[in-house]
């Protein structure tokens, strides 16, 4: 353990001397996220999205939604509203492009909510208007979270314990036809995307510094030292993990403070973040094993990091494209990381994003395992 930490500490010292790590790990991703979110916020202002509303319920909760949630937004000039006779007409309006998105409050909605049963608020998105669909969904999410809040308060007042109240299921769910259930805000999405994209560049030095040491001859000294080879490899991997976790933490906190991002439960986000760093470290280590020099490793790693980033949807929200890309995105840690953050997002979110975290840990285990099997050929003087 001592030797492992010694190697990690030495690698970190070298990284700190070589200031490029700060640039890659913090300055660039945060800067890009900030710029992107500014630009897209500007777009939001110019294009006021139009939403169609089909109220098939005509109940009290539906009226609350249209009157107290959508109404004020329309008066503030954030959105424009149009009334549709029913779900079919609403879908047609979205299809024609008359509306960027539509809300459908199905018949029986109010009864279901008041009765404590699951109910569905439908959002029909338009693939050609991703930002409008996105806003529509965000609004619906906020409402769903509020309604649950009301339920919880009622349950407590009715004599139950707060614990019982917490077990009451969220009575309203959003059914979204265009995309995933939960979503991050634009700023959050870009901050997280850039962070995870650059994470792959940040952690890549860990394992591939074995190749640096080989070039500089110091690997011979490490091999001649009374230290198991596995210790050398794990010491190297740990260096990448430490820098990755620090950089991601700094980026997430900075996005919170400076871009107003809200990430959800710190425990869940922390666990997801570590899982993401482990996955990135494993993938980059595996890629490094195909190279014989540090330069070669760097090039191959860059290509892989960019490809995975694009596929994983850090530049374009891939779920808006759908089809093959949505499926392909599942083979990237990026997608799972973003999915995890989305799952943790909002008031009704769980503490842990279980599936995305496990997916990331799976990536980490498989890639690191194969990298370790292949590491022997790198550990030569």
């Amino acid at each position, binding site marked *: 353990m*001592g*030797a492992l930490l*010694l*190697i990690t500490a*030495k690698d970190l*010292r*070298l990284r700190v*001397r*070589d200031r490029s790590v700060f640039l890659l790990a913090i300055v660039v991703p945060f800067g890009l996220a900030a710029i992107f979110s500014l630009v897209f916020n500007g777009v939001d202002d110019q294009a006021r999205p139009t939403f169609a509303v089909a109220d098939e319920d005509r109940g009290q909760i539906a009226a609350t939604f249209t009157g107290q949630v959508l109404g004020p937004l329309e008066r503030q000039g954030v959105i424009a509203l149009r009334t549709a006779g029913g779900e079919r007409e609403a879908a047609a309006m979205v299809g024609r492009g008359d509306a960027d998105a539509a809300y459908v409050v199905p018949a029986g909605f109010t009864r279901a909510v008041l009765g404590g049963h699951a109910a569905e608020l439908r959002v029909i998105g338009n693939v050609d208007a991703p930002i409008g669909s996105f806003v529509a969904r965000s609004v619906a999410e906020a409402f769903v979270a509020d309604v649950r809040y009301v339920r919880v308060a009622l349950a407590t007042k009715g004599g139950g314990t707060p614990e019982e109240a917490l077990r009451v299921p969220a009575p309203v769910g959003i059914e979204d036809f265009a995309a995933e259930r939960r979503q991050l805000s634009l700023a959050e999405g870009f901050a997280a995307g850039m962070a995870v994209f650059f994470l792959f560049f940040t952690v890549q030095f860990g394992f591939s510094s074995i190749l640096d040491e080989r070039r*500089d*001859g*110091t690997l*011979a*000294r*490490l*091999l*001649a*030292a*009374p*230290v*198991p*080879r596995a210790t050398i490899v794990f010491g190297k991997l740990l260096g990448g993990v430490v820098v990755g976790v620090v950089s991601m933490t700094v980026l997430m906190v900075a996005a919170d403070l400076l871009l107003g991002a809200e990430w959800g439960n710190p425990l869940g986000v922390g666990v997801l973040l570590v899982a993401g760093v482990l996955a990135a470290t494993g993938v980059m280590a595996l890629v490094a094993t195909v190279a014989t020099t540090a330069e070669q490793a760097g090039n191959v790693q860059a290509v892989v990091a960019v490809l995975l980033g694009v596929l994983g949807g850090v530049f374009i929200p891939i779920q808006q494209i759908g089809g093959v890309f949505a499926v392909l995105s599942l083979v990237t840690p990026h997608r799972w990381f973003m999915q995890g953050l989305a799952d943790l997002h909002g008031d009704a979110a769980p503490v842990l994003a279980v599936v995305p975290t496990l997916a990331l840990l799976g990536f980490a285990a498989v890639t690191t395992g194969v990298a370790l099997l292949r590491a022997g050929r790198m550990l*030569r*003087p």
Partner: protein
Amino acid sequence: MGTAGLGPLPCVPPPDQTARVPRAEILKCQNLRKTFGDLVAVDDVSFTIEAGETYGLLGPNGAGKTTTISMIAGILERDGGQVLISGRPHGTTSRWGKKQIGYVPQDLALYPDLSARENLRFFARLHGLGRAEARARIDEVLRMIGLTERAKDPVKEYSGGMKRRLNIGVGLLHRPPLLILDEPTAGVDPQSRNAILESVAALAGEGVAVLYTTHYMEEAERLCDRIGIIDLGRIRAEGTRRELVGLVGELDRISLTTGGAQAVPKELETLPEVRKAGSHEGRLEVMVEDARKSLPRVLAAATDAGVVVRAVEVHEPNLESVFLHLTGKALRD
């Protein structure tokens, strides 16, 4: 072994060494072998080194010196044979054995962005020295290699000679009973080289067993108690300088500078007094019984064969001649 002229030749212990007390055997290599694809880089190499003894591996570029040393240091897997450190089997996974070895690689092996002290601290701690112990020992080593003043500067700002000295210093940190130095004087000015040779001799005087590779005959002659002559992966002969020179018999070497590539002419090779002849870098090297007597006939034969002789040198037997005798080529290429 045993094939005349190929395997290590038997050496008779010289009379002046009979009073020597036998010392602990620190390193024993037996039948070491390493291949890279079709190339046999090290072939059946065996030798031993005792405490306080300096053993030189003398051979030209590509002879297999570094490969041999890498197997001994536990850096490279061997394809055959075994290594014993103080009688214990040693390999790439032996932690105990690695603690006994101080290894100085042929190429500089330092972190250029770290200072000398940081480099030393890292390797000292990696070899298991405690914090305080490491600090004291680093000061000692810095004094030994004359870098105390510059200890805080990053190594990338050092001169070549300073880096070389630090490279050696790292190998001394944990006071190893066996010190392995792979051409430590390559690219070092004569003054620094002298200092390095003196420190190595001093360490041997303190009882350290030293394995020293070089392709400088003078270094091997001056420093090493015993020398193994290695070529094409095999040890061709082994012994003290005196023993090795004895192998050439009383032969002298006549070196004819021809000023151009020149094959050995038949007329010269077939002269009765010529024992062996070779050509190298515009020189004809001719081994004869008695140079003074045979010089006129050698010159005549060369001239008859149309060789233009620019200069003539006569050498007493030394390791260079031994090498030529054993391998038919010169030590330096």
